[in-house]
């Protein structure tokens, strides 16, 4: 059974204090690993998709990396507006080529203080 575990559950950072969020996963065959950001009362907002070990993607202060067992979301010099819950999700290789279910972790709640 696919499993996604995120750590830590909550993280408090000072503005400018860089850190990393972890997503460990177990899946029969990885089709893709996704990072989303979720603000209170809103739906998940897409950030990155990673497909194979060694792949990296960047967007502003965020950088996502992938190994065969885990993914990291690195946050460099965070600002208060980066405060949100960050969700990791995986999809497994299945017969269909036209879309696939996401299996989510519980998320990491990030608070960045001025």
């Amino acid at each position, binding site marked *: 059974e696919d499993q*996604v575990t995120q750590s830590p559950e909550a993280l408090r950072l000072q503005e400018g204090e860089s850190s990393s969020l972890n997503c460990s996963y177990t899946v029969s065959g990885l089709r*893709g690993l*996704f990072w*989303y950001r979720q603000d209170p*009362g*809103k*739906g*998940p*907002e*897409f950030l990155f*998709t990673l497909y194979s070990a060694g792949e990296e993607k960047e967007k502003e202060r965020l950088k996502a990396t992938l190994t065969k067992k885990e993914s990291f979301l690195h946050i460099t010099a965070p600002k208060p507006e980066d405060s949100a819950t960050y*969700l990791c*999700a995986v999809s497994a290789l299945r017969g*269909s080529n*036209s*879309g*696939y*279910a*996401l*299996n*989510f*972790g*519980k*998320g990491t709640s990030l608070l960045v203080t001025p």
Partner: protein
Amino acid sequence: EAGVTQFPSHSVIEKGQTVTLRCDPISGHDNLYWYRRVMGKEIKFLLHFVKESKQDESGMPNNRFLAERTGGTYSTLKVQPAELEDSGVYFCASSHRDTQYFGPGTRLTVL
């Protein structure tokens, strides 16, 4: 481009009543998904449509839940009769290919 929209944003009903949630996907997206998050748990997959056909409904909890997608456009998720454990936030997402874009969710409270 308009995003995924969901209606209503909140719904409060009594146990045993019926509720219908609606999702309008991004125009042109053939794939439509329903997910839900119950209190303290992670977001869980319910089902997946490709156009008007159910591709995967392995996450549907029981036969009190009925999803439809008329003409491959908007989708509805009906809960009948609602139970207390159905309370949570129901998300809809749509995709053209890999990336799923989520709506704001419907918060359902069953009293």
